[in-house]
């Protein structure tokens, strides 16, 4: 049976998927990218190979993500914009708007009926509205990144974070801590502020339901809650929202293999 590998080298994590031509995921891998993208790619390939017990030689690889050019054995690299669209479409072909929030960028993508992007918007040169923003704020609030979302959901009165700049927002958060506001309110304010940037991006592309959220940040329940509120729609989240880019790359690898045959 034909198979394809997709590798998504993101700014924070590196993801890998091995897919067969029936659409089954045979193996998946998720690890921190760290300082060496090349090592992360090698390790991801080893993980996929050992967990599926399949020799990856002769299986086409498509790379995506910020480090896509670092994947030497890839037949081709594609942007994460195309790969996330294709990946989400593979799982749920009805999705028309995809909001992907990763470590250093946030994107809103309008997906066409064929599964390819029709229009997209990315955050500007700034980490506000990305996973990095949440990481910085979690550190200031002295909670783990995983605990930040649940903490924020406890708040009834989110603090006001007016700044859209991560650095200035950090000072603002420190100010709120000094003023004695609760960590939950501040955490909620952080999410509201971040989501307002992302919902603006989404509205520029056009909010057409059903809407899907992916990327590491989609795992955060407070992010999902506030985004759903601000857009006025229910969000559909895939089972493994961090893997859709790698999945899309694997789908494209299989398509290419099919064309060759």
């Amino acid at each position, binding site marked *: 049976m034909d198979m394809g590998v997709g590798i998504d080298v993101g700014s924070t994590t590196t993801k890998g998927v091995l897919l067969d031509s029936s659409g089954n995921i045979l193996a998946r891998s998720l690890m921190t990218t760290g300082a060496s993208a090349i090592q992360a790619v090698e390790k991801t390939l080893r993980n996929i190979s050992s967990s599926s017990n399949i020799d990856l030689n002769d299986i086409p690889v498509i790379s995506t993500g*910020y480090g896509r050019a670092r994947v030497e054995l890839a037949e081709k690299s594609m942007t994460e*914009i195309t790969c996330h669209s294709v990946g989400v479409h593979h799982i749920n072909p009805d999705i028309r708007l995809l909001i992907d929030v990763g470590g250093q960028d946030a994107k809103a993508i309008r997906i066409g009926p064929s599964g390819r992007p*029709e*229009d*997209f918007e990315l955050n500007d040169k700034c980490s506000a509205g990305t996973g990095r923003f949440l990481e910085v704020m979690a550190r200031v609030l002295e909670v783990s990144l995983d605990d930040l979302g649940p903490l924020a959901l406890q708040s009834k009165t989110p603090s006001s974070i007016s700044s859209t700049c991560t650095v200035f927002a950090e000072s603002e958060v420190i100010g709120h801590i000094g003023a004695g506001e609760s960590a939950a309110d501040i955490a909620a304010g952080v999410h509201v502020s971040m989501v307002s940037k992302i919902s603006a991006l989404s509205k520029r592309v056009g909010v057409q339901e059903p809407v899907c959220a992916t990327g590491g940040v989609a795992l955060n329940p407070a992010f999902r809650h506030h985004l759903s509120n601000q857009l006025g729609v229910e969000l559909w989240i895939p089972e493994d929202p961090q893997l859709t880019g790698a999945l899309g790359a694997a789908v494209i690898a299989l398509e290419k293999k099919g064309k060759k045959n």
Partner: protein
Amino acid sequence: MTQERASEEKPYRRLETQALLQQIAFRHGLEAMEASENGSLAWVTSGFPVEIPIAMNLGVVYPEQAGAIIGAQKIGPAVSGYAEDLGYSQELCSYARVSIGSTEKPDEVPMGSLPTPQILLAGNNICGTVLKWYDAISEMTGAPVFLLDTPPIEKQQLPHNQEYVRHGVERLIEFIGSNFNRTLEEDRLREVAELSSRATKLWIRALEACKNKPSPLNCADRFLTMAPVVSSRGTEHCVEFYESLVAEVEERAKQGIGAIRDEKIRLLWDNIPPWHTLRFFNILASRGVVFPADTYTHAWTGNMVGTDTPSIIDEVVETYSKVYLNMGLDAKVDKMCQLIDDYDLDGFVMFSVRSCKRYSLGQLVSKEIVTERTGVPGVIIEGDMVDSRVYNAAQIETRVDALLEMLM
């Protein structure tokens, strides 16, 4: 975007006429230096009716063009820094910053500092920053400033605006006259306008040849060969340059020779280019992407003063008010849609220039409207024409690659 090929087989073809460009630039530089030494050099903005100072025997140079040269030499951040050290904001137009910076430290900028001006002629038909920028240069050099104020136009120029600009042009003639003790000869103005019009018509022919497939010129070719029509309009040697360019371009078109070797995708470029990274276009060329049209070099096609009219001054008033940066956003959107149709383009790239607010304003909404009207997709990338510090190559690459993936 993969790396530019190092082999002899470059993905793009070099224009032979480019050799003439260096001669023209050299000659233009010498003439400017001479004019400055003789006490008759004007610094002018790009949308200024340059036919008038030329007809009154002033030498002219364009600080915006000097800014482009500083950008291309990749010394933009350093030269901007000299202005920033004086307290100018990084948000200020980078052409203004490098102009002020190179006036402050001319010895540090041998190829980009202009000879000392005796008069500063600013037209606000391209932006409002020019006035304060020229004021700053005036303080530094002692040269007086003249502002030709052209109220923005929505569709048609109103009669009272026309009258107002006409007075402005008359005041300009008086201003130059009283500063240099000379008068404007109508015949000389007609002669200059005639030359200017001939050069512009030839330029339009070269641009329109790009409707051919493959396109005989790419973006970077046009950004370089536009220099004379900006800086030497109204001179014989400018006309000669464009005769030579048109001959080469039309020959390419006739023989089916493209600016790039393997044309697959045709895109529109919007805005001033990143002068520090013109290789952007060459890298895309290696992937079969050509830019047969752009809004920037087409801006100079409107600056044509008709010569078969009773009053050249009236022509000047109308022509220079109708620069599309002086018109509503609709005019620019119309221009983009028209270029996409006329040049049969597959998509467009809008460069959001951090420090050129006038040109970049409204790009988000323009992008939507252009796509709606033409059905082709576009992308906005961010950076600056001269200040490479705000140009993030990786982010631009992702955006442009995603657009190409939508088209391929």
